[in-house]
């Protein structure tokens, strides 16, 4: 799979991004510059960076692979990926920006008792970041092994080393520009591929889908629901997990603080939504295009009929078919760049949770020295990078899809309920928020562990105790109900303070 062109393009990307890190390091002196790029990113740039954070290799390779294998049902994941953005713009963009400084913990700390709120928010953020890192690193290792022929361990080390460099040298500014470049490249790659696929069918959608249905073993069934999901609850629980999980991802929420004002924050979410929507529309064309075009190429299949490299390699094969060596090189380099950029974004969010929330605000109660805090940030970044290599190695032979479900479900069941209630419900108390987040965290981890992805595929039991991989439909209500019950029955002095402070918070949240 490896070509000189892909290696050359990848090295060029690395060179450019390392130069950006050096450039950003000259402009990153203060805490605000490190965590939120000094609030100087424009709405469009931030929209691109948010889109870059979300358009991961899992989306590009994984969802295309699902559409190739199962047809229409792969669209459920695409629909789940686009719905979070309009909700982010409507519910969070203004209020979060006006209330927070560096991350969403600042918002909870303003509304609730600071130490407990920050501890709870930073714990869930670190858990989500680590789970997300595992999924990214395992995917990265396997992908790079296949694309570039590098040993799995080397691939992990390269991804971690480059991401640590971007973050620890250039902070949020470097990470943002790496994301912007990567998002632009990825969007260009999928746009070229979609154009070339449609070109093969004279830009006739009907012809594309007809050929796809004719060539796929399942025939017309690939255009109907039921290829992957057997019951409606399975679909809805994925939709719930993905929609609300997006609204609870710490590395995404953190980006709402990198713009100068509310107007730019709204613009960020709007542009992110548009770019992500466009990306998934292109993916639909690529997904069905891969069915129509790859199945006519017997040399791409092994003796037992599976595509070389597995379904995740479908977009790479398609690039070769429609665009030749240059496009395959470009798409492979972009896939690698995608992983680097997403891991960098995660490292910023994880290091901010440790150094800003735990070290600076809880341990030193806001009196920490700036240099020392930034040093802790860099140490945390390096530590998280090393942890991600170790976990990537430990989970090497495990099911990536099951691991990838975890961060979305945990984010939907911990951060999202607490954040939305903190912003819009007067009666939320510190105790209610912490218990709600804990209930969401425990229930989501337990249900995922006893679900098919872990219980059957990792532990090897014949039957799962819980039938769904994405338990968001059950765990999100658990978190909301716990927040509601504990908050409404909380008669403590702190609870009164929490309720009284809400009105003032709302005015602050609505004023730029």
């Amino acid at each position, binding site marked *: 799979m490896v070509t000189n062109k892909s290696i050359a393009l990848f090295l060029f990307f690395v060179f450019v991004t390392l130069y950006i890190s050096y450039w950003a390091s000259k402009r990153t002196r203060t805490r605000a510059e490190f965590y939120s790029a000094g609030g100087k990113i424009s709405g469009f740039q931030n929209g691109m960076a948010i889109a870059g954070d979300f358009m991961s290799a899992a989306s590009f390779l994984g969802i295309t692979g699902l559409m190739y294998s199962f047809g229409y049902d792969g*669209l459920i994941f695409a*629909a789940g990926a686009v719905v979070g953005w309009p909700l982010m713009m409507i519910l969070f963009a203004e209020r979060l920006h006006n209330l927070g400084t560096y991350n969403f913990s600042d918002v909870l700390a303003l509304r609730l008792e600071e130490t407990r709120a920050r501890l709870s928010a930073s714990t869930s953020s670190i858990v989500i970041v680590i789970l997300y890192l595992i999924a990214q690193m395992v995917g990265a290792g396997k992908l790079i092994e296949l694309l570039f022929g590098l040993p799995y361990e080397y691939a992990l080390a390269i991804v971690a080393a480059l991401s640590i460099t971007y973050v620890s040298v250039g902070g949020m500014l470097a990470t943002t520009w790496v994301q912007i470049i990567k998002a632009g490249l990825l969007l260009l790659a999928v746009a070229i591929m979609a154009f070339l696929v449609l070109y093969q069918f004279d830009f006739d*959608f009907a012809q594309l889908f007809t050929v796809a249905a004719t060539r796929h073993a399942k025939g017309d069934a690939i255009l109907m629901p039921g290829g992957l999901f057997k019951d409606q609850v399975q679909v809805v629980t994925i939709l719930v997990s993905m929609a609300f999980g997006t609204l609870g991802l710490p590395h995404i929420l953190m980006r709402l603080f990198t713009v100068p004002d509310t107007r730019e924050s709204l613009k960020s979410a709007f542009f992110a939504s548009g770019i992500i929507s466009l990306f998934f529309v292109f993916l639909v064309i690529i997904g069905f295009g891969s069915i129509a075009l790859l199945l006519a190429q017997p040399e791409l299949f092994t003796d037992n009929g599976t595509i070389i490299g597995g379904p995740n390699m479908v977009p790479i094969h398609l690039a070769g078919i429609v665009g030749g060596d240059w496009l395959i090189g470009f798409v492979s380099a972009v896939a690698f760049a995608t992983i680097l950029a997403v891991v960098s974004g995660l490292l910023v969010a994880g290091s901010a949770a440790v150094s800003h929330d735990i070290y600076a605000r809880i341990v030193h109660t806001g009196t920490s020295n700036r240099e020392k805090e930034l040093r802790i940030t860099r140490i945390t970044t390096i530590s998280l990078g090393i942890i991600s290599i170790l976990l990537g190695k430990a989970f090497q032979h495990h099911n990536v899809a099951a691991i990838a479900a975890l961060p979305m479900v945990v984010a939907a069941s911990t951060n999202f309920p607490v954040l939305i209630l903190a912003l819009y419900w007067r009666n939320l108390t510190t105790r209610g928020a912490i218990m709600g987040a804990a209930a969401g965290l425990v229930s989501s981890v337990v249900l995922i562990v006893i679900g098919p992805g872990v219980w059957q595929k990792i532990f090897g039991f014949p039957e799962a105790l819980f039938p769904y991989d994405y338990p968001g439909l059950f765990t999100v209500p658990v978190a909301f109900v716990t927040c509601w019950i504990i908050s409404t029955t909380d008669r403590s002095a702190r609870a009164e303070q929490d309720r009284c402070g809400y009105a003032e918070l709302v005015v602050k949240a609505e004023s730029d």
Partner: protein
Amino acid sequence: MPDDKSIHETIRARNRIRLIMSLAILFCYFGFSFGWSSLHDLFGSGIDQQAVPVGIFLFFGLVGMFLLFEIVYLIMLYRIPSLNSELQTGRQDGH
């Protein structure tokens, strides 16, 4: 919170828009998943008619609807006076 009726009204109006738009988005989102099977029963996959399959068409429509909702939200939001101007007026009036 400043005891000012117009500030209450502004916040309430903004929250009303947020609630309506969020419910509309969630309705379309879950409707897409629940409704597609029924639509398929009504219209077929669309492949026989040499048209874009209904499910794919619905997905493109869903994405377009989301973007439309966002534009509508922004228009509605900018029609409400911002809280900054309300607070400014309040200050000038001596509140």
